[in-house]
């Protein structure tokens, strides 16, 4: 037999091999294995494995402080749920709260201190050592002292223990001042406090006792106040309340309202005065309220010219609606009138707020349940000592602040940066931000110090502004803190140390100071603790020690104070020191509607609190902004179809929105729910908040707002032209 191989041999071998392979399990198993392999790529994320557990904490992403039940796998939270027994949330969480456990992994999260350099319109982030940063801050503070300039802290979440420590720390700095965030929810309550000067403590809002609510711009169904209370108020369940909403654009609140008064932006004061006119003219003011009003006669004189017809002409609200509303409020049981802030649009302004709160006081709102109610304040964490004053931003002198701390460690707020910029000295101002994320207001700073985000550091939930009684809860961390995160108290202490000052107290970290406050609350002996896990109620007096009190709070509980008696004997001023301004407005009511041909539109920026309360939001919120049209993105300018036609604008087309402060490029969208002559732009979340780190600091609508009275920025005159 020949032994050299021929091609035919190889072919026969191959044929045999093919037959053999088919008869062996190899190809069949390989197919199966390959199929599995191709479906299990290494880059497809695999969910964590571990023991499931449930832990209670509170959501600190906005001041409401809803209770949160975290479902954890192997001690890592994988989903957050509302707590049914929670009186704050009413058993529901907002989209921000539902995704709060994503925030520690947000792409914009900072892991080390950074310097932000703005050059030629670009922004660069450079790493910086914490020691160098502290030295620089100390130098800046020393220089500020030497040149008589102020050192200020802008507190985005006032009312916390940390807020108090800022005041104690800055008390020793010359010109030290703490500024609560402008336009924050509840800011308008400072106006009514000034109208009832003998009232001690704070005012809360008694939703539960009201039968009629008139809200000037407060988005009750969009996260204003404590969302759970609003949900109960607006009819889910018992207690139907007659709601009248004043707003220039349609919103979830106007949809739920029994009556919508679409007043032109900026005419809220006139509407309130017009309603006051009807109350006085028809004798609907109660004797008790009338008796307590110091300046009733002047008020009456001021509103005499604002008949329903005059008010209708000035505001755009039909006269019969004004009359009907006044009657409904006077006759429909206890009425609560609210001067609201919009999370993106800010306050109505002191003049309008005075008119609105005055209306409420006239309806008896401060003298009986169902209106403003007094509440005790939470004790501060430490002994009384010198405190830096609290000033609203617009009360500071321009070009007076040399060093500004932005405390966004517990949350952020939306407002035009220009309002802050003008308070900074022209040259050499240093802005230092404390923030978990390089997003939101922190991007405006020169130096940023990373702090722990939600679920990694202890956060405190002091009384929300609208609560009828003081409350206190603690957001227990569920995650290990990451290296690099700086505790705000440790930072303040280090800054103090670097600038040679004696430390103000025994606390080293936020947890220490919050615990100290809890201990003082416990010592007060009032109120009760409500546990989140089962709703169990324990009276403070029955808790044996401050440590036991702290343990209950950390396990997930809310301390609630007792309500003070609601009937007030205090006198109040209807005109609150702005009588002159109100009189001016009333006198010029008929010219209020004159539109400027150059600036034919009014810009109404609007925000939802669930996205403006945090600099960064979970990227999953793209479901609401990018992957559906449910919420308007900040890139859209909404106008009424009529307005679009008049200005020759195409829906979907690009346009330039311009005000006296600047211009910004947007896309046009039409919405018949927007008042003609108004352009509505959403304030957030921008792309960096949703996870695109590169987009931080991009211009938004707030950069072109401004110029209103005090620190208002809504209602700027604007124009919109095709790009």
């Amino acid at each position, binding site marked *: 037999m020949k032994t050299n191989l021929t091609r035919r041999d190889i072919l026969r071998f191959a044929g045999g091999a093919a*037959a053999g392979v088919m008869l*062996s*399990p*190899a190809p069949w198993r390989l197919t199966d*294995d390959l199929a599995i*392999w191709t479906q*299990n790529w290494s880059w497809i994320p695999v969910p964590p494995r571990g023991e499931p557990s449930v832990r209670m904490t509170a959501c600190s992403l906005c001041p409401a402080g809803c209770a949160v039940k975290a479902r954890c796998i192997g001690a890592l939270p994988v989903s957050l749920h509302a707590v049914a027994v929670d009186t704050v949330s009413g058993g529901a969480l907002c989209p921000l709260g539902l995704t709060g456990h994503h925030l520690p992994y947000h792409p914009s999260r900072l892991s080390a201190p950074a310097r932000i350099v703005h050059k030629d319109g670009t922004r660069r982030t450079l790493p910086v050592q914490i020691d160098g940063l502290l030295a620089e801050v100390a130098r800046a503070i020393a220089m500020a002292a030497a040149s008589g300039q102020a050192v200020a802290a802008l507190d985005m979440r006032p009312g916390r223990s940390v807020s108090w420590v800022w005041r104690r720390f800055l008390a020793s700095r010359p010109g030290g001042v703490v500024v609560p965030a402008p336009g924050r929810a509840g800011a308008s309550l400072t106006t009514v406090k000034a109208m009832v000067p003998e009232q001690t403590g704070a005012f809360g809002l008694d939703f539960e006792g009201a039968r009629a609510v008139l809200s000037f711009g407060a988005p009750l169904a969009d996260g204003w106040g404590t969302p759970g209370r609003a949900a109960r108020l607006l009819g889910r369940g018992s207690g139907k309340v007659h709601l009248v909403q004043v707003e220039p654009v349609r919103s979830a609140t106007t949809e739920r309202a029994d009556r919508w008064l679409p007043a032109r932006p900026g005419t809220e004061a006139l509407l309130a005065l017009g309603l006051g006119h009807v109350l006085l003219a028809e004798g609907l003011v109660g004797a008790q309220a009338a008796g307590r009003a110091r300046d009733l006669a002047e008020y009456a004189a001021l509103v005499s010219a604002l008949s329903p017809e005059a008010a209708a002409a000035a505001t755009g609200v039909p006269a019969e609606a004004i009359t009907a509303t006044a009657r409904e409020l006077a006759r429909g049981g206890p009425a609560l009138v609210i001067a609201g802030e919009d999370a993106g649009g800010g306050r109505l302004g002191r003049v309008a707020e005075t008119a609105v709160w005055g209306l409420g006081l006239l309806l008896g709102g401060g003298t009986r349940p169902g209106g403003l109610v007094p509440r005790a304040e939470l004790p501060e964490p430490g002994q009384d000592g010198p405190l830096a004053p609290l000033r609203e931003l617009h009360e500071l002198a321009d070009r007076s602040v040399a060093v500004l701390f932005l405390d966004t460690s517990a949350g952020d707020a939306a407002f035009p940066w220009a309002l802050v910029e003008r308070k900074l000295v022209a040259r050499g101002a240093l802005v230092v931000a404390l923030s978990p994320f390089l997003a939101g207001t922190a991007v405006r700073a020169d130096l940023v110090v990373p702090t722990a985000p939600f679920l990694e550091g202890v956060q405190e939930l002091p009384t929300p502004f609208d609560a009828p009684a003081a409350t206190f809860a603690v957001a227990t961390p569920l995650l290990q803190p990451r290296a690099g995160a700086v505790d705000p108290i440790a930072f303040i202490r280090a800054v103090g140390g670097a600038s040679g000052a004696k430390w103000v107290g025994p606390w080293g970290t936020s947890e220490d100071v919050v615990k100290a406050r809890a201990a003082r609350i416990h010592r007060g002996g009032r109120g009760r603790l409500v546990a989140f896990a089962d709703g169990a109620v324990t009276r403070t007096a029955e808790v044996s020690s401050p440590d036991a009190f702290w343990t209950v709070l950390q396990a997930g509980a809310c301390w609630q104070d007792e309500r003070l008696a609601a009937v007030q004997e205090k006198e109040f001023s209807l005109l609150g020191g702005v009588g002159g301004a109100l009189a001016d407005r009333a006198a010029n009511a008929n010219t209020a509607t004159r539109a400027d041909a150059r600036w034919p539109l009014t810009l109404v920026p609007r925000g939802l609190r669930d996205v403006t309360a945090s600099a960064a939001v979970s990227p999953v919120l793209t479901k609401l902004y990018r992957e559906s049209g449910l919420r308007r993105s900040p890139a859209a300018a909404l106008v009424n179809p009529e307005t679009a036609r008049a200005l020759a604008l195409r829906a979907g087309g690009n346009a330039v929105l311009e005000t006296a402060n600047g211009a910004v490029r947007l896309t046009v969208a039409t919405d018949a729910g927007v008042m003609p002559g108004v352009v509505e732009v959403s304030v957030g979340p921008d792309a960096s908040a949703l996870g695109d780190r590169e987009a931080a600091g991009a211009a938004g609508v707030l950069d072109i707002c401004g110029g209103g009275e005090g620190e208002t920025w809504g209602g700027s005159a604007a124009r919109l032209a095709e790009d």
Partner: protein
Amino acid sequence: MRHRALLMVGVGAGATLLCGWFAFPYAVFRRIEQPIQFSHKLHTGEKVGRACDECHTLTADGRFSGIPTVEKCASCHAEPQGATPDEKRLVDEYVKPGREIPWLVYARQPENVYFAHAPHLKLAGLACESCHGRHGASDHLRPFEENRLSSYSRDIWGRSLTGPRRTQCEGMTMADCSRCHQQHGVKESCLMCHK
């Protein structure tokens, strides 16, 4: 000539049959030893006397603990109880630092598979041996035979590479579960077992 033809075909067929039936199973599975050797027999035997469900528990909300966490081991083995080097490694490398032992789970299913022990143990009354064999009586942990391509255990595919199962507890593929369900008249649907 014909002999040669047959010879070549035969050699070809023979070579691939040998490869397919013997070399392939050997090559496609990689044998990995478990991180720690563990004797079920010792722990359930007279000396220690643990019951199966002390470590492999079914909770009231229907979850099965699977292989217990190192905390369970730590409850007895905070310090070495015996003299074996494996136990010393357990205590030094896992119990003391609180590190989870990276067991290689023979029964690990893909991520998209949902298997609940509760209905099988409580409603069907199956014993552990029905699916896991005499694992609970073993005195050592056999090596984990990992399929190099798909990374799943040979216990899932079945020890033999051909279809027919020799024992009830051989193989945990979808076909195996399905066969048992059909035998027992359990209604089948995708959602029952997939997540």
